[in-house]
């Protein structure tokens, strides 16, 4: 280990970007001017038309000039997301409902699939084909454990227990 510390010749480009001026407490300080320190003082880019519902953080006064329109809020998950966006990023009431909405959204996705006549191929969607190819024993074990859990749950349910199995795979 000692000799590694002294012999750098085997490393192509060693020290090529060393910069004694790199002061880690002031990111990009040389480029900062006082004039730039006050609020929204830049010339804002053209605003993208807001033609879908865009939820924006209450920690900013507006919608950013550009935004994604991948999946506008909808359904029950949308209701929960709208609630979440009433609270700041500093609040659990923002993040926890969003995580809940994501779970609700998964169920909505499955319902949508069936509505459009598409039966999701869970085995393929979870990429188990790859696991079958490269780790057969692991996959078989995983399913065996899941089957045992399901069997256990069935036994418990028959005893009128209200336990719920969520089918998580690993």
């Amino acid at each position: 280990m000692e000799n590694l510390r002294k012999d750098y010749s085997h490393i192509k480009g060693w020290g090529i970007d060393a910069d004694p001026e790199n002061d880690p407490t002031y990111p990009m300080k040389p480029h900062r001017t006082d004039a730039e320190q006050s609020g929204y003082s830049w010339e804002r880019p053209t605003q993208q038309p807001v033609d879908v519902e865009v939820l924006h953080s209450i920690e900013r006064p507006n919608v950013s000039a550009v935004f994604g329109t991948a999946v506008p809020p909808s359904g029950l998950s949308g209701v929960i997301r709208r609630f979440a966006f009433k609270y700041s990023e500093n609040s659990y009431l923002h993040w926890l409902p969003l995580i809940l909405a994501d779970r609700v959204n998964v169920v909505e996705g499955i319902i949508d699939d069936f509505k459009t006549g598409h039966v999701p191929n869970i085995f393929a969607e979870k990429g188990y084909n790859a696991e079958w190819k490269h780790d057969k024993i692991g996959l078989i074990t995983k399913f065996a454990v899941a089957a045992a859990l399901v069997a256990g749950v069935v036994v418990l349910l028959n005893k009128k227990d209200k336990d719920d199995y969520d089918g998580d795979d690993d």
Partner: protein
Amino acid sequence: MLAMDYRGPKRIRVTQKPMPEIKHPEDAIVRVTRSCICGSDLHLYNGNVPDTRVGTTFGHEFIGVVEEIGAEVTKLKVGDHVLVPFNIACGKCHFCKQGLFGNCHESNPMATAVGGIFGYSHTAGGFHGGQAEYVRVPYANVGPTVIPEGMDPEDAVLLTDVVPTGYQAAEMGGIQPGDTVVVFGAGPVGIMAAKCSWLFGAGRVIVIDHVDYRLEFVRNYAQCEAYNFREMEDPVVFIKKTTDWMGADVVIDAVGAEAAGNAMQTITGRKTLMQAGSATALHWAINSVKKGGIVSVVGVYGPTDNLVPIGNVLNKGLTIRANQASVKRLLPRLIEHVQNGILNPKAMITHRIPLEDVADGYRLFSAKLDNCIKPVLIPPSARM
């Protein structure tokens, strides 16, 4: 067009989606030629990132050919083969003007802590990503960079995130000649951070991970020391011991919220989501760095409480630097390094997978099957 489609935790498929459209005068539409699956995509894949909506396309690492441009796009033309930085940046706001392209304030209405990122949940702006045949690229005058003549597209695609993020991790460490640098995580970013640490003059580079094939890879690729924490009683003690009981000068967290190695954090953070992932690597980083040392964080962490040992940060007088990489700022230098053979990003690519098999690709990568280091997706339209 074909695109990856998120259906819920660990459930994805490829579906037909509408072609992306120009929505803003500075937009471009790019036909994807290569895209990667990134370690940070796994946080989305596992359902750990809030506001990841069903129906979204992931993918923030991609290159492609410009197919269409908006009225205000002047720096690109149809037919250009471009590499697209993962962060969406306007180039005009307070933060962009400081070179903080990863912190742009005009690309993400949904959160102020993070700028817009392709295919990275609605918390990062709600943009569809590049694991598709086509993608909408906003602010096409700012981010996309024409791939230099003669550059291998597979090197180019890694310049969209992995290389700059690894490089910036080392840069944020403020590494001075002779410093001992410890990197937690031997995924692609950790591998690149280790490699780049030498460029800043490190005297010793140590990588810690728990997957033997990755350790073997980084040992060869980055010419560094690499150790398995499963074989240690305590990684922090190990680092102290091997640095004359001082601690490392610089520690890089290239792991983030999916960290293994601590049962309590695995249960509360990864299995039950009682906190946003496990902060094991961050704990180790803060605790193994020298007093007055620097912790550089590039691992992705969620927004809620992570039980960070913040008291130690205070007591040890640490400087913590953390950011998403400012890809645009770093590109000219990195392109130079690739062209001069100092960096060889494409050597990290172990799997080339048709876009149609994206679900298998994610499983392969997340379950660390078949010695996978970095998978690249190839859309059908790029195979003709």
